[in-house]
């Protein structure tokens, strides 16, 4: 790779760090205010009492748990792209890998807030952590919520490290290009990185191990989140399909989130030469596959329920399909299945715009899917005297909207301080298409293995 390409890549990808327009401040101000409003809303819930939400007997979980499952689901974007595509050596992942991993980390952080937000006594949330207390009492390891605690923390730790490690060489580039205070800060962040073969080799080995480790963790995390439902004898909850169903749904919504993020970055950071239509098409094909997989799981779940014809399950079944929840249910089907299959299945529509439209449909559809798993079942369990409806209240709606604002805010801030496309990984890839070369490892000895570079 010649000097001009190097310098070009450096200047293109470092421009957002060194140049700030008024739009940045506007976005931060706007989304920051929404997040602050939500914080005030939550604090007022803690102060005035949980009763200001719409939660009621017997529907004890509503918007908060929906958001929890939704955002943990979105977090599977990064794992798929960074880890799985890295493991199968798919070179086209290179410009996309950090965008995806950033979504993972921030979506996890947002999702992981909800187990605290939805607690009746959130100031005691630390009891979920296993620490020796003078009362000799520990958390209940048999509870799905404790599994959640361990799984999400493991995944968050792994994802943060998986995101941060490949940022180190890029921090070194920023350190070299910056001056003054910025140079010193990035110098600290770069941890004295130089770029010797030893360091590169260690880094790549560590990344491979992390990729291998993070995939089962990601699968386990959303399976465990699904256990929050399948461990309770609630009609249409106690089904073994929830594990794989949730994981597939998570990867599905993650890809959709990634497509939207990529389209926005491409537009607003002028990355048209790095995020190419082929990237969108490849991810669009993945979106299609996941849409079909989602349809397969829904068909499975509903056919088996329908065939069993158990009264309490069928009551919930019809509630979603025909009765009070039908508008939401069919919107979900259109958003999750019809739209992505049509738009991503027909090559003519598989453009960047098509991908974004399909992805927005999936985001809406997947949020509704989480809601429709939780609320119709809880409002219609076994005893007719206890059937009820749930009405979300302003505090829940504000917090739900604010999660999207928070995600955008964190993303905008990240793109300001860290190159959103991994510079060194991009350079490691081939010239024009940024498709990575297949690695050829030499035997020991001064044999020159050369790939002609322009």
């Amino acid at each position, binding site marked *: 790779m010649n000097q001009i390409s190097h310098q070009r890549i450096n200047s293109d990808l470092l421009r957002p760090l060194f140049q700030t327009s008024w739009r940045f401040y506007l976005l931060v101000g706007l989304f920051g205010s929404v997040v602050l409003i939500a914080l005030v809303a939550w604090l007022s819930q803690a102060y*005035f*009492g*949980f*009763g200001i939400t*719409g*939660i*009621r*007997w*017997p*529907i*004890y*979980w509503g918007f908060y748990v929906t958001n929890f499952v939704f955002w943990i689901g979105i977090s599977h974007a990064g794992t798929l792209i960074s880890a799985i595509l890295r493991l199968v050596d798919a070179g086209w992942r290179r410009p996309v890998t950090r965008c995806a991993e950033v979504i993972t980390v921030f979506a996890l952080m947002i999702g992981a807030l909800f*187990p605290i937000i*939805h*607690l*009746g*006594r*959130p100031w*005691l*949330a630390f*009891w*979920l952590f296993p620490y020796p207390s003078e009362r000799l*009492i520990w*958390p*209940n390891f*048999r*509870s*799905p*919520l*404790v599994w959640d*605690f361990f799984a999400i923390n493991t995944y968050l730790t792994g994802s943060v490290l998986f995101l941060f490690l490949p940022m180190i060489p890029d921090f070194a580039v920023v350190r070299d290009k910056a001056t003054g205070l910025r140079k010193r800060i990035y110098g600290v962040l770069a941890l004295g990185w130089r770029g010797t073969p030893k360091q590169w080799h260690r880094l790549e080995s560590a990344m491979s191990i992390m990729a291998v480790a993070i995939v089962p963790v990601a699968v386990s995390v959303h399976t465990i989140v699904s256990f*929050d439902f399948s*461990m*309770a*004898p*609630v009609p249409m909850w106690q089904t073994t399909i929830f594990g794989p169903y949730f994981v597939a749904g998570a990867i599905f919504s993650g890809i959709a989130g990634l497509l939207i993020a990529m389209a926005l970055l491409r537009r607003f950071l002028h990355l048209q030469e790095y995020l190419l239509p082929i990237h969108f098409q490849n991810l669009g094909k993945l979106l299609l596959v996941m849409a079909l997989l989602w349809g397969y799981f829904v068909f499975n779940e509903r056919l088996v329920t329908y065939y069993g014809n158990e009264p309490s399950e069928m009551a919930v079944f019809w509630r979603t399909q025909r009765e009070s929840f039908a508008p939401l249910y069919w919107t979900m089907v259109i958003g999750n299945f019809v739209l992505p299959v049509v738009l991503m299945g027909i090559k003519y529509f598989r453009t960047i715009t098509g991908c974004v439209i399909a992805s927005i449909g999936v985001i809406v559809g997947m949020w509704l899917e989480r809601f429709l798993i939780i609320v119709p079942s*809880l409002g219609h*369990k*076994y*005893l*007719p*005297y*206890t059937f*009820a409806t749930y*009405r979300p209240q302003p505090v829940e709606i504000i917090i739900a909207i604010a999660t999207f604002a928070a995600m955008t805010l964190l993303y905008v801030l990240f793109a300001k301080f860290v190159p959103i496309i991994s510079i060194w990984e991009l350079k490691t890839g081939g010239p024009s298409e940024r498709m990575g070369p297949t690695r050829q490892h030499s035997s020991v000895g001064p044999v020159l293995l050369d790939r002609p570079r322009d």
Partner: protein
Amino acid sequence: MPRWGMAADLDKCTGCGACVTACHAENNISTVGADQAAVGRAKHWIRVERYWEGEFPDVRLKFRPVMCQHCDNAPCEPVCPTYASHHTEDGLNAQVYNRCIGTRYCANACPYNVRFFDFFNPSWEKPLHLQLNPDVSLREVGVMEKCTFCVQRIKATTIAAKAEGRALKDGEMNTACAQACPSRALVFGDLEDPESEVSRLSRSSRGSKLLEDVGTKPKVTYLSRQS
């Protein structure tokens, strides 16, 4: 070791609601006001479910008092992350208010919907605060609460009997609801004692368990003639 259980005779229940009132009084359960009750915030540890069956003029009215069934295979217990909901040695499902952080998973898991959440700090208008039972702790906002089979009465009577060096007699101690029931539809006692009234009633041919097929192994037997 006793195993506490109840029997509810649906043929005797008149739906008067004395059990509900007695429970509120005994266990310091606050009322929440009409508005909050309308949005499902009421905390009736025992409630009388009323069902209308049939078309006019052949309408039948059925009452079923439902309280915590203290299931031996309770779905609410394994899911609590802090062991606030667990099973005691005498067969009760205990709810430890101090340990509850309010995840409300137990309430979702309960098929009988007999678990209640304190949405606000309970309050009693003066002079009702003078009527509070000193043997029962007050709950604060954010914790779950439910029927305890009047565990304070169980403990008090057990301690008194032990101090006198004798065993508990059947009928010596009663839950508030069973004590208040005018038609003696509710019976409380020790299922381990085969001669106790609740044991005999649980073996009755009119007896059945509520939602038995969910597999919770409840300890309340409902008696009714199949009509």
